[in-house]
């Protein structure tokens, strides 16, 4: 079913400043899409609208045929918990919890934490975090923290993974590892990945690139390297 954006408009402030101007596009299930553009072009705002974190000023977003503006609060929370994963530039981990506990938080909300612990441990091992499950975020490196955040985003096997400049705060080696994890999730699990990035090289690794200029779609197609 995928994602559908219809006449998506987003304005802020009073008098209103329009950041997104009537965007129309769709993203199919299993696609790997990069959202690119300069700072202030509206790519993060668009990501939050598509990821059900924010509501458009007008227009609508549909996920799997469900209009986000009409679904109930319970459905919205279930969607965020089970169908959507988010990764940000900064790791956004709960500092009081260990790596394992952080990754288990979405499962804990769904009351599946005990049943899923073994799977989550395997996921952490797969992400190169074996032996570090019981460490607090401050005891991990930046790259490890980001991998824990990605593991948490993928822990419920979501259909959609939204990433907002996930490599922005990482060194080249760790950025490469993170990109590898996104590609693997997309390839092996069929997760639809929508990636906001400034880095043309990473954007080029997506199947499709949507470039925004001043809140409008400048180009939408196979990635370009420039």
């Amino acid at each position, binding site marked *: 079913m995928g994602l559908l954006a219809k006449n998506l408009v987003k304005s802020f402030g009073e008098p209103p400043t329009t950041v997104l101007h009537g965007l129309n596009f769709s993203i199919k299930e299993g696609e790997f899409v990069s959202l690119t553009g300069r700072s202030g072009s509206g790519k993060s705002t668009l990501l*939050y609208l598509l*990821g059900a*974190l*924010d509501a458009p000023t007008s227009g609508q977003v549909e996920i799997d045929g469900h209009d986000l503006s009409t679904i109930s*609060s319970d459905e919205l*929370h*279930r*969607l*965020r*918990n*089970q169908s959507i994963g*988010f990764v*940000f530039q*900064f790791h*956004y*981990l*709960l*500092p*009081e*919890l260990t790596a394992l506990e952080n990754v288990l*938080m*979405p499962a*804990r*909300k*769904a009351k599946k934490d005990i049943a899923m612990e073994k799977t989550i441990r395997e996921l952490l091992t797969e992400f190169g975090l074996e032996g570090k499950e019981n460490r607090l975020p401050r005891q991990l490196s930046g790259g490890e923290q980001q991998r824990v955040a990605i593991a*948490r985003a993928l822990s419920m096997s979501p259909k959609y993974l939204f990433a907002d400049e996930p490599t922005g705060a990482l060194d080249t080696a760790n950025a490469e590892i993170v990109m590898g994890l996104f590609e693997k999730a997309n390839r092996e699990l069929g997760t639809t990945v929508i990636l906001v990035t400034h880095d043309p090289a990473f954007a080029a690794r997506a199947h499709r690139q949507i470039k925004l200029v001043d809140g409008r779609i400048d180009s939408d197609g196979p990635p370009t390297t420039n």
Partner: protein
Amino acid sequence: MLFLAIRHLVARKKQTTLTLLGIVFGSMAFVAISGFMLGFQYFLLDQLINNDAHIRISAREDRVDHEVANKDLYSKLDKNGLVSWVVDPSGTRSNPKIENPQGWAEILKKDPRVEAYSPQFSAQVLFSVGAIAANGKLIGSEPDMQVRVTNIQSYIKTGKFEDISSGGNRIIVGTGLLKKLGSGDGSTIFVYNGRDKPVPFKVIGTFETGGRQIDDTTAFGALIDVQKLAGQPNEINNMAVRLIDFNRARETAHDWQPLSPDKVESWDEINAAFLNVFRIQDAMRYMMIATILLVAGFGIYNILNVVVTQKKKEIAILRFIGYEPGDILQLFFLQGIILGVVGSIIGLILGYIACLGIEQISFGGGPMGGGTMMKVSFDPMIYLRAFLFGSLAAAFASLMPARSAGKLTPIDIIRSGAE
């Protein structure tokens, strides 16, 4: 969310400890102050209820004015309006007495609420030994009936209470009174009724209730001896009644009052001033505790407000992984509840220890001490109230920060750039 709430509290040890201390001190103060004050109150109440009658029927003290005097002394002349007074007479009738003691005895025997009663004649007298004299009260009673109405038997220090009726003019004297007179067991005390010659009474024992107002002024004698001393043989001026349930004293007294012109008063009516002091003490106690808990509550409110601001990033994380506003509210509200419950429990334990300490303080044998130690109440209700007040203050104080945390949306936090 309990798991995360506990992790939050453990992670910020210093703030948690400081907040906890507020509740601990509040609960501890409640237990210690209430234990001390109620111990004192219960002690006095016990004295009021068990050392004296639950209901006292006493002779009415009729006021005498010119109308009464004219009617009694000059009834014929008064009818013609020929009596006039230069100075109006004023006072009370001498020798007040219960007019129909037999009638009262019948009523009391039949009433199922009555456990026992004791006819008494009490007289204000002057006790003297040589040149030393002291004012006081001599209570005449039938010892076998008197011991069923009050606890006097348990306060006997020397001698036997029932011996006052074996032989003539024997008394049991309060230890304070005997000390005032500089006299001792087995000595003779002269008792003066204000009109006739002093009469010698032999001291056959002593009692000590712990209440100076009784021990320093009172002596007990046989009913017949006191009636003779007062010059009112076969008359009584008091009827002390013990009920099966002292809580029904006021209601019972009101039932009996219309039956006779005699005065019928329950123990709580007689001691209304005392009980009012207790009420004022209670009000002060609650105000004091409310102030302490209010300060502790503000501590929790302030700290949780700061914590909510500091934890915005974590709130955003929880929200975008599917946690609902109610979960976030619960997370912070639970922290307040945990602080309240744990702080209250620690406060109760410390308060209990403080009460054990207060109990060991010697108070010089005054009315508060009964003997020499302070009286402290360990009534479970004190502990229950302290626990509830502490927990509720904490819960109430955490509710507003928790609600404000629950209202935060993930996108607002992300946009505000919370770190």
